[in-house]
C-alpha cells in the first residue's frame, strides 16, 4: 500500500515538474498574425483584408525587439515595400526595400533591381 502511494506521488510529481519545466525560448522572429492575415487576403482580397495584411506586417516589424534575434523577420520589409509600391507610394516602397537590404545583405541584389525599376519608371513619368 505504501509503495503504491509513493508511486502515485512520484508520478504526480514528475507530471507537475515536466509541466512547469524550462520556459519556452522566444521565437527567433516576431510574426504577429502575419500568416493568418496573409491567408485571409489570399482567400478573399478586399480593401479590408489588404489593409489588415499591411497592418499585421507593420505590427510584426514594430514588435521585432520582442523576438530572440531582435531583428525584423526576413522578407518583412520587402513585403511591406511591395504593398506600398502597389498602392502607388514609391518613396515609401524604396525606403522599405533599403531597410530590407540593410538587415539582410542577401536581399541586396533583388532589392537593388526593384529600386532601379522604380527609379526608371519615375524617370519615364518625370521626363
Amino acid at each position, binding site marked *: 500500500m505504501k509503495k503504491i502511494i509513493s508511486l502515485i506521488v512520484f508520478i504526480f510529481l514528475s507530471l507537475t515538474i515536466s509541466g512547469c519545466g524550462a520556459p519556452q525560448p522566444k521565437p*527567433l522572429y516576431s510574426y504577429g498574425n502575419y500568416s493568418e492575415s*496573409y*491567408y485571409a487576403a489570399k482567400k478573399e482580397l478586399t480593401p479590408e483584408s489588404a489593409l489588415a495584411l499591411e497592418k499585421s506586417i507593420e505590427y510584426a516589424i514594430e514588435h521585432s525587439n520582442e523576438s530572440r534575434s531582435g531583428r525584423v523577420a*526576413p*522578407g*518583412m520589409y520587402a513585403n511591406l515595400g*511591395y504593398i506600398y509600391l502597389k498602392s502607388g507610394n514609391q518613396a515609401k516602397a524604396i525606403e522599405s526595400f533599403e531597410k530590407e537590404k540593410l538587415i539582410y545583405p*542577401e536581399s541586396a*541584389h*533583388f532589392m537593388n533591381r526593384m529600386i532601379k525599376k522604380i527609379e526608371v519608371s519615375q524617370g519615364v513619368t518625370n521626363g
Partner: protein
Amino acid sequence: MVNKRLIAYLALAVSVLLLTGCGPAYITKGVAFPKMYEEQPKSLLILPPMNESTDAEAKDYYMTTTERPFALMGYYTFPTEMVSDIMKQEGVYETEILYNMPLDKYQEYFGADAVLFTNIKKWDVSYMVLASTLTVSIEAKIVSTKTSEELWKYTGTVVVDLSGGNTGNGIAGLIVKLVVAAVNTAAADYVQYAKVANWRLMGTLPIGPYNEYYMKDQGFKFIDQTSKI
C-alpha cells in the same frame, strides 16, 4: 517473487527489442543531407508551389504558410508574394515552367543561393462510411542555384481523422458524422494542417545561418524516407 519479477523484466526487454526492430529506420541530418552542410546556402527563394492535388485553391493557400518556418529555421527567405508576382510579370505563369527553368537564372535575377520547390501531393478529404480523413501532403526540396544539385528533400504528411469519435449508432449517427466532417473541412483547416506538415519537414532540414544552432545539428535524427523496408 524474485523469479516473477525477473520474468517480467525479461518480457519487457524482449518486447522493447522486438518493437525497435520493427520500427522505422532513422538517419541523421548529416548523413542524409551532406551537401547542405558542404555548400551552406544562406538564402532560399521560395517559388510558388506545384499543385498535384485535386483542390485548385490549395496553391494559393499553401503559399501563405512557407515563409515563416523556413525563416525560423535560420534562412533568408525571399518575400514569396513579391517573387510570385514578379515571375508573372516576367511572363512565367505556369509553375511547371518555373520548375524547369535553368537554376542559375534565379541566382542571376534574385541573387538566391538556393531555390525551394514545393509540391502539394495531397490536399483533400476522403469520405468513407465509417470515417472521413483529411490529408495534406507536401513534398519539398532545396536545389542549389550554383551546382543545380539537390541539397535537401523530404515529404511531410498529415492525416487527420475527422469522424471526431463516436457520434452514435445507426443511420442517424452516420449522418451526424458526415455533417461533422463537412463542417470540419473548412479551408482554414487545410492551412492549419499544412503548417503541421511544414513542421514535420522542418524536423529534417539542416538549420540555417541566422539560427544559433547553425552547423550544430548534423547528429539530429529523423525517420529515413529513402529506406525500403
